[in-house]
């Protein structure tokens, strides 16, 4: 058992139960001998190289939190008003007070001269939100005081605060997948007509579990920067893009944004647009591939081998050009960049774009292949069937019974309301 080896003697301790015998070489285990030193040095180098203890310690002292930047904010203000209703639309009952108000009452108008070109005076339109008190509570108290006094102030305050509204659901899983976006010009329709239009969007969103985002066209005058834009039909189309930008901000987690022009009605509320057109398997058969951008004989055509899941923008066409009375945009950063470059100031003020955003998007798609590869054209009858103004027989572009959406953008002033009333009676709602 315990031999009398080397130096120490091992006596059995009284309290221990049993100890294994020590090996004979126990006293000869000296790690740090002279012949082991190179191996130990090599081991230390190996561990240092691969595990880098100094780096780990220095990394712990480096600040873990990145710089903090301000959160995104809406177009004209730094504060948001959160709502948990997925139907965002302006207060229509106040619109009679807004009609006929001059520009400097609903917006802050200033005239500036550029120091480099002192003879040119430019008009700058800014929202009244820029005059807000930075403290939210003070501003709210001020507005309530104003509202109590006069209905016109109430209308103006509601008009300007509409920009701040952002959707924040009570239950984050219950987010609407598709948002129906419309920009309404309160000078164009009567209160009754506007109510019908907005009610139509809200009804559809309610039946299909989507969201609605409606704004006044006049709210986007800071981006258009000239009231004359709203006077002509072609220039007023630019509001569509700015309204979509605002909608993207208000519903950050939606999947799709569908813009429907104010001169349209959703006729068949049974159709769920995702299954009808937006899902990959639904979009694939109706995408028009190798379709000239400018029918019938344009040189640049849409691509042949695009896949439906890479499409970010869906537009329609009329007989001679691309139309944006009804278009769909996905919610991701590429689509955001397409929308923003489409609405940039240099295109807005470009003289050679006769049809406003329609010409702009045609130009973009013709010159930029990356964007063309993310865009597709669908037949007009799917989401933008036109009202039959010229009383021709039904074609691929005009509305017939059973189509999803009808639009009558080419109307002249009093006729628009009549057409609206006529179609409003024919809207098919799902049986509850």
């Amino acid at each position: 058992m315990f031999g009398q080896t080397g130096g120490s003697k091992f006596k059995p301790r009284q309290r221990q139960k049993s100890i294994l015998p020590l090996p004979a070489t126990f006293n000869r285990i000296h790690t740090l001998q002279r012949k082991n030193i190179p191996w130990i040095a090599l081991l230390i180098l190996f561990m240092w190289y691969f595990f880098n203890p100094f780096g780990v310690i220095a990394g712990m002292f480096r600040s873990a939190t990145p710089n903090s930047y301000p959160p995104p904010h809406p177009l004209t203000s730094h504060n948001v008003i959160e709502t948990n209703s997925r139907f965002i639309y302006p207060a229509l009952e106040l619109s009679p007070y807004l009609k006929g108000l001059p520009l400097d009452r609903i917006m802050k108008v200033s005239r500036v001269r550029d120091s480099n070109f002192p003879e040119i005076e430019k008009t700058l339109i800014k929202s009244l939100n820029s005059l807000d008190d930075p403290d939210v509570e003070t501003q709210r108290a001020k507005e309530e005081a104003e509202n109590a006094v006069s209905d016109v102030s109430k209308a103006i305050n509601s008009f300007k605060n509409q920009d701040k509204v952002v959707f924040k659901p009570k239950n984050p899983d219950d987010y609407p997948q598709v948002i129906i976006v419309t920009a309404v010009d309160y000078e164009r329709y009567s209160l009754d007509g506007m109510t019908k239009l907005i009610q139509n969007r809200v009804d559809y969103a309610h039946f299909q579990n989507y969201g609605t985002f409606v704004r006044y066209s006049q709210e986007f005058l800071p981006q258009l920067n000239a009231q004359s834009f709203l006077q002509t039909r072609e220039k007023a189309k630019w509001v569509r893009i700015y309204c979509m930008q605002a909608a993207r901000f208000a519903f950050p987690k939606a999947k799709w944004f569908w813009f429907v022009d104010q001169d349209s009605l959703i006729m068949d509320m049974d159709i769920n647009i995702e299954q009808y057109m937006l899902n990959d398997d639904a979009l694939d058969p109706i995408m028009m591939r190798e379709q000239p951008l400018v029918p019938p004989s344009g040189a640049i055509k849409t691509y042949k081998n695009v896949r439906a899941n890479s499409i970010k923008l869906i537009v329609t066409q009329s007989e001679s050009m691309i139309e944006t009375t009804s278009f769909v945009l996905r919610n991701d950063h590429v689509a955001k960049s397409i929308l923003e470059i489409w609405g940039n100031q240099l295109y807005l003020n470009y003289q050679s774009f006769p049809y406003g955003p329609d010409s702009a998007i045609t130009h973009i798609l013709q010159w930029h292949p990356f964007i063309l590869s993310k865009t597709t054209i669908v037949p007009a009858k799917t989401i933008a069937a036109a009202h039959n103004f010229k009383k021709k027989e039904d074609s691929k572009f005009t509305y017939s019974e059973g189509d999803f959406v009808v639009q009558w953008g080419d109307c002249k002033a009093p006729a628009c309301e009549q057409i609206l009333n006529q179609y409003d009676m024919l809207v098919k709602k799902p049986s509850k």
Partner: protein
Amino acid sequence: MSESQSFSLPYSKGNYEDMAEAHHRSASRTSNEKYDDADEQYSHTFKPNNSSVGWVINTIGELAYRHKKTFVVLVALLILSVFTNAPFIPHFKPSDPKIVIILAANEGGGVLKWKSPQEWSVERSSIANKKNYAKRHGYGLSIKDMTIKKRYSHEWRESWEKVDIMKQTMRQYPNTEWFWWLDLHTFIMEPQISLEEHFLNNLDNATYRTLDTFNPLSLPVDMPYVDYTEPVDMIITQDCGGFNLGSFLMRRSSWSEMLLDIWWDPAMYEQMHMQWEHKEQDALETLFNTQPWIRERIGFLPLRKINSFPPGACSDKADDPRYFFQDHDFV
């Protein structure tokens, strides 16, 4: 030492010579005739011979055991060559480099004038410097010829080659993440610093995204709809007169593809090219000024981190220490 009856082990049968004979005899009985050499019949680890895979491993193990020193040297060389960047050893890099340096060479060459010998020598040393740096850190290097070709008609898109070359290089290196554009007249002064440790590993802290601290062009600092939680896809610097695209980095992503596609647009160019004297730089400034999606993914570095100026550039701000080269600056 006579023969013992109770034990049948060969070793116990006789003296040492007998033991050796007994060893051989029992060996020749159990092995097949293929093996002539006595050494190969026995492995010193006494493990049985299984399949051919095991045989290969066994053979290598045996060789290693026998020639320990050469084996250690070989393994060390293999590790150095594959995993590190030590000099004098050939390296086998199976994958594409993670960062590619695009060097814009031969500027000023082509149809306009002859290049003088000084210009050639500057070019040679610049290229050698970049080659050395790339090899040292395992980066790729792509030298692009910037001869003025007069391919495009008057002013129309001439000197906008940065965009085209960047697109072309991104196609050439499909697996690379970062592309670093360097003008010819630059010199990497501290080649031991790799880009990763200089700022790439610490991107959020090293770059600043808003212009509130340093805004030479007085661009509006605040813009609606900008979400700063997006990753940084392009790193540029600002000098005294605005953005500086002499040395910038771009990551491969769909954002970068979009930017490279839209950077030159005929409608925007037609309206603005009289004001855009620095071409892509000014176009990018205009885009940055008006487009929130661009602001989201551009990060700025202090000028001296990748592009310190020599005295003479930015001469109206000669005293500003932020622009000019000091000891231990990188480029």
